[in-house]
């Protein structure tokens, strides 16, 4: 029974790892789009391999023991219960293994905190239940908009078929240029939220009354999706994040369009006010 159990588990783990190594599979972290996300991805795989080796070693021994040292096989119990040497060895080895895991992690932690010298700074504000984006500095300064779930209520309530990006589409995407360092400043309007885009390797809580910062530099163009990751009330599951990374030229065009619309809106507001 024991050996079957063991081989079953080894099989499951190996399968898990095999599929886990496949980039962008649904068994693993999404395909990394930034240096930090790549480091996270590699460290996770590294940690998994270490765990797998330890797992096989420990449960190999235990499995052998379960098969061989059973009463039904007529095995007589030994009576040892102590060995200082062995105890020291199996305290020291895990310590050394942990150092090998902690070392790369430490370097990444320091890199993650380096938000300085960014090209564009965007303030992200969490609201119950949507995100607000303000381009504070850099190209696009002055652009501000809200970003809300674009999935219809009828899809959510199973009245119409669900689209491809069900619950992961917004009305206004955060648009950023590729290859530029984007500094994200986070705060919240009411309760805690967390801004999380897995492919960019970014997750940071948004705290009302305080600002926090994080950063990313996207290596490739594309659309990357995430969700609020801190329980923020009833619509917590319905405030996705969509980041659209575009070529620099396209970004300049987008900025121009946004600023023009904003100016038209402002004019309209002034005219409306005057008309009143």
């Amino acid at each position: 029974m024991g050996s079957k159990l063991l081989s079953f588990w080894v099989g499951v783990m190996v399968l898990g790892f095999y599929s886990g190594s496949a980039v962008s599979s649904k068994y693993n972290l999404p395909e990394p789009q930034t240096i930090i996300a790549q480091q996270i991805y590699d460290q996770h795989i590294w940690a998994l391999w270490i765990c797998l080796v330890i797992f096989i070693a420990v449960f190999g021994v235990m499995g052998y023991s379960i098969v061989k040292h059973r009463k039904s096989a007529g095995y007589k119990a030994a009576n040892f219960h102590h060995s200082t040497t062995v105890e020291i060895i199996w305290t020291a080895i895990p310590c050394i293994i942990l150092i090998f895991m902690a070392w790369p992690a430490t370097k990444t932690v320091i890199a993650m905190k380096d938000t300085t010298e960014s090209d564009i700074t965007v303030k992200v504000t969490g609201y119950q239940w949507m995100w607000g984006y303000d381009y504070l500095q850099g190209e696009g300064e002055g652009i501000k908009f809200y970003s809300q779930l674009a999935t219809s209520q009828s899809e959510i309530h199973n009245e119409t078929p669900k689209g491809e990006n069900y619950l992961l589409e917004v009305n206004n995407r955060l648009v950023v240029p590729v290859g530029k360092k984007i500094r994200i400043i986070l705060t919240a309007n009411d309760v805690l939220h967390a801004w999380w885009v897995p492919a960019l390797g970014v997750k940071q809580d948004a705290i009302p009354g305080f600002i926090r910062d994080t950063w990313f530099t996207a290596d490739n163009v594309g659309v990357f999706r995430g969700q609020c990751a801190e329980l923020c009330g009833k619509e917590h599951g319905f405030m996705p994040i969509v980041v659209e990374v575009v070529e620099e030229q396209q970004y300049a065009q987008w900025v121009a369009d946004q600023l023009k619309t904003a100016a038209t809106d402002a004019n309209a507001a002034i005219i409306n006010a005057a008309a009143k």
Partner: protein
Amino acid sequence: MKLDEPRINVKMLRKLLVFSVMMFGFGYAMVPLYEKFCEVTGIYELQQPDVLDKNAKVDETRIINIQLDANVRGLPWSFRPLQSAIQVHPGKSAEVIYEISNQSDKTQAGQAIPSYSPRNLERYLKKFECFCFTQQELEGGETRQMAVRFVIDPELPKDVHTATLSYTFFSLMKD
């Protein structure tokens, strides 16, 4: 069974109860401890003007990009800095202007709470004038421009080039 056993037990009960009460107090003690910790590490803002050190040398070799940010919570006010960022040399005093305007027709009071990024910036950003030291009361429709005068301590760690100074106005009315 020894006769004095219950007395030992009662003594131990008393000790453990006192310990529990102390730990309850410790929960509360974490509030000032946390503030103290944040103050030492420069995360927590004291609502006090800093004293300007006249001898501070201006470090012309470095330029720090200070981004300015403004937020309002629970008030019908608009609140913004007149410039989005300022470039300063450490040691040189700088002034930035924020503008608040009450868009309702009632008199309202608010208090601004500052926040910094990176979080240890507070230790190096010496403010000798700030609208956040006192509460601000605005009449209906009133607009006010307020200054923050500060100097960046030249001791600011070398790897900091960009920083953010943020204020959030909170309503002082109880709802």
